C-alpha cells in the first residue's frame, strides 16, 4: 500500500538533488518513500518513478480534500485519523483506495508522455492505423503501461483476507475510472486550416473529473458482508463468485462491479473521535450546508472587514489601476 493508503506520514518529500552519482540518486529517493520490498524494486527500475509517486500522492490528497470540502468528513489526512480510518472498511476508506490508485495511474500516464520515464513513451496505437479517415499522431497519454504498472504496484492478489480483497477491488475501481475517462483529441491540417488531414491522439480526462466521478461512486457504494463457507472455512463475499471458486486462479469472489464496496457503516464524523477531529469550528455556508455539517448544533457568525481591489481600469500605456474597496462579510463556523 502506498500514499494515502500507506502507513508513513503524509509529508511530500523534497527530492533534492544528491551529490552522489546520477545513477544512485533515484535509489535514495525510492528508499525515502518507505515502500514495500516489491514496490521499492519497481521504483528503482526507472529513474522517473519516485518523482511520479510523490506527484501522485500530492494530486490524490488535494483532490480528496476538494471533493469532500462540503462534507462532515472533509478528508482529514492527519496521521492518527487516517491510520484509524484505514483499519476499518468504511466508504471513506474505499474512496481513499480508489483516489490513490487513480492518482497514481493518472500521474504515471502523464509522466510517460512527458518523457520523464525511461521505460515508456507516448501512447502508440498502431492497430488503429488507416482504419479511419484521420490518422493517429501526436502524443497520447500512455494508459496501457500505467494501468499495468499500478495493478502490479498496489496488488496483493493472493491474499485470502476479505478486507484485502475489498481494498484491491477499490484500487481497481480507481484504475477503471481513469480508463473510462479517456478522450480522443484531434487537430486539423490542410490548406487554410481545412480538415484535409486530421491527427488524433488519446488524452486522459482532467483529474477533477476523475475525482467527481469517484465521489459519486462513494455516495453509491455497495455494502458487502462475509459468510463462512463451512466446507472450506473460508470467508467469502455474499455475492456468489462467477465460475468456479475452488480451483486455482478462480474468479474473484467479490462482485464484479465497477462500484466501490465497503464493509462497515460509517460513523457520523460529528464529534471528535478516532476517525476525525469533528466539525466544531468548521466553516460552512449558511443556507447550503450549515445544518448538516454542524450536526444540528448550530453555527456562530463572525463579521469581518475584507479589502479587495475593485473598479480596475487599464491605463495607457500600460498598467492596470484599481481602487481598494472595503466590504463586510460574515463567516459561519460550527458551534462546539
Amino acid at each position: 500500500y502506498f500514499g494515502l493508503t500507506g502507513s508513513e506520514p503524509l509529508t511530500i518529500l523534497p527530492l533534492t538533488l544528491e551529490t552522489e552519482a546520477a545513477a544512485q540518486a533515484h535509489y535514495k529517493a525510492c528508499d525515502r518513500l518507505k515502500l514495500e520490498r516489491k514496490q521499492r524494486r519497481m521504483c528503482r527500475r526507472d529513474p522517473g518513478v519516485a518523482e511520479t509517486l510523490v506527484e501522485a500522492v500530492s494530486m490524490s490528497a488535494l483532490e480528496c480534500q476538494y471533493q469532500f470540502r462540503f462534507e462532515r468528513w472533509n478528508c482529514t489526512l492527519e496521521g492518527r485519523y487516517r491510520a484509524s480510518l484505514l483499519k476499518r472498511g468504511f466508504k471513506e476508506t474505499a474512496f481513499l483506495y480508489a483516489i490513490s490508485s487513480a492518482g497514481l495511474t493518472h500521474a504515471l500516464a502523464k509522466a510517460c508522455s512527458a518523457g520523464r520515464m525511461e521505460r515508456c513513451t507516448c501512447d502508440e496505437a498502431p492497430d488503429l492505423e488507416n482504419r479511419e479517415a484521420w490518422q493517429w499522431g501526436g502524443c497520447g497519454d500512455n494508459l496501457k503501461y500505467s494501468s499495468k504498472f499500478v495493478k502490479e504496484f498496489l496488488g496483493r492478489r493472493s491474499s485470502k483476507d476479505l478486507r484485502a480483497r475489498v481494498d484491491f477491488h477499490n484500487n481497481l475501481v480507481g484504475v477503471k475510472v481513469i480508463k473510462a475517462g479517456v478522450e480522443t483529441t484531434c487537430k486539423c491540417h490542410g490548406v487554410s486550416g481545412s480538415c484535409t488531414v486530421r491527427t488524433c491522439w488519446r488524452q486522459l480526462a482532467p483529474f477533477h473529473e476523475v475525482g467527481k466521478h469517484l465521489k459519486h461512486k462513494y455516495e453509491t457504494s455497495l455494502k458487502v458482508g462475509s459468510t463462512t463457507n463451512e466446507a472450506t472455512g473460508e470467508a467469502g463475499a455474499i455475492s456468489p463468485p462467477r465460475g468456479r471458486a475452488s480451483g486455482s486462479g478462480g474468479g474473484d469472489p467479490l462482485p464484479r462491479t465497477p462500484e466501490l464496496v465497503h464493509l462497515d457503516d460509517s460513523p457520523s464524523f460529528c464529534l471528535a473521535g478516532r476517525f476525525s477531529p469533528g466539525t466544531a469550528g468548521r466553516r460552512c455556508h449558511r443556507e447550503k450546508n450549515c445544518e448538516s455539517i454542524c450536526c444540528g448544533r448550530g453555527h456562530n457568525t463572525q463579521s469581518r472587514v475584507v479589502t479587495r481591489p475593485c473598479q480596475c481600469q487599464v491605463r495607457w500605456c500600460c498598467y492596470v489601476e484599481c481602487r481598494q474597496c472595503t466590504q463586510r462579510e460574515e463567516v459561519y463556523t460550527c458551534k462546539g
Partner: protein
Amino acid sequence: MGLWALLPSWVSATLLLALTALPAALGANSSGRWWGIVNIASSTNLLTDSKSLQLVLEPSLQLLSRKQRRLIRQNPGILHSVSGGLQSAVRECKWQFRNRRWNCPTAPGPHLFGKIVNRGCRETAFIFAITSAGVTHSVARSCSEGSIESCTCDYRRRGPGGPDWHWGGCSDNIDFGRLFGREFVDSGEKGRDLRFLMNLHNNEAGRTTVFSEMRQECKCHGMSGSCTVRTCWMRLPTLRAVGDVLRDRFDGASRVLYGNRGNNRASRAELLRLEPEDPAHKPPSPHDLVYFEKSPNFCTYSGRLGTAGTAGRACNSSSPALDGCELLCCGRGHRTRTQRVTERCNCTFHWCCHVSCRNCTHTRVLHECL
C-alpha cells in the same frame, strides 16, 4: 352559571379557596407560566358576556399575572385569540423540529414545554420566540376579523400610497398585536438577571420577525380587470414563514453574557446589554435569538434535565442529514420493522351515484431508534 348557583355555599367557598391557593403550589420559577392557558376551553360569547365570572370559573387563568388578567378584561375576546395563538405556536414548533433530536415535546398541564424552559439554552430561546410570535400573529389577525372589541383593521393606511395605487381593504393590525404582545407576554417575566434579559430579548425577536415579514398585497380595478386603479393592503405572513425564519435564527443563535459596560449610574438601557460570549462573534441584533447555556444532550432520557431521548423515534436509514438514523439515534443503531398496510385504491365513480374501491395491501418499511 346555573350549575354554579346549584352548589351549596360551603362548596363554592372551598373551591374558591383551592383555586386561590394554586399559584403558591406552582413552584418558584415563573417564566412562561402563561403558557398553561393553551388548553383553555372558552367561547367568545362567554368571554364577552361574563367578564368577571369567567376569571373565577377558569382555573388556568390563575397562571396569569395580575397585569395579564387586567389586559384580558380590558380587551374582550382576546383570551380566545391568545390561546389560539399559543396552540399555533406549539404546532409550528413541533413542525420545525420534527427531524431533530429535540422535537419540541409538550405535556398537558401548566408546564407546557417541561423543564427545558428553566435552562438558558437555544431550545428555550426558540420556545420563547415562537410563542411570542404566535400570540402577536393571532391577535393581529383577530383584530382584522373583528373578534376583539378594542381593535380593528389598521385604518391608518388610507388614501394614496403611491403614484398609481392607494391604500384600501383591511390591513392586518400588526401594531396592536405587537403592542399587546409586548404588554401581555413580557409582563409574565420577573427579575433582573441574565435569564430575564434573555427571555425578553427572545420574546421581542419573535414579535419583530412577524412585523418584518409583513407583505403588501394589491388588487386591480378598472374596465375588464385592467390596472387602472390598484388597491393595496398589508398582510400578515403565515406562521410557517415566521417559523422558518426563527428556526434559521435558532441555528445561528448567539451565546451571550452580561455586558459590563458602564457603571451603576448608567442609564437603564445601557445596563440591559447582552454581549457575545466570544468577542470575535457578531453582537446579537434585535432579530437574533440569544442563549447563555449549552444545550443538554437530547439523546437519552433524563428526568432531571427533562429530556425524552430519541429511543423509539422514526428515522430515515438512507439519509446522512439530521433525520438520518446515524445522527438521530446518536450512534446507538436502529431497528427495522415491516408493516402491512391496507388502503383503498382504484376507486371509480358509478352513475348514479356511488364510489367503489378495491383494497390494496403493500408492505411499508419503518426504522426506529434503539
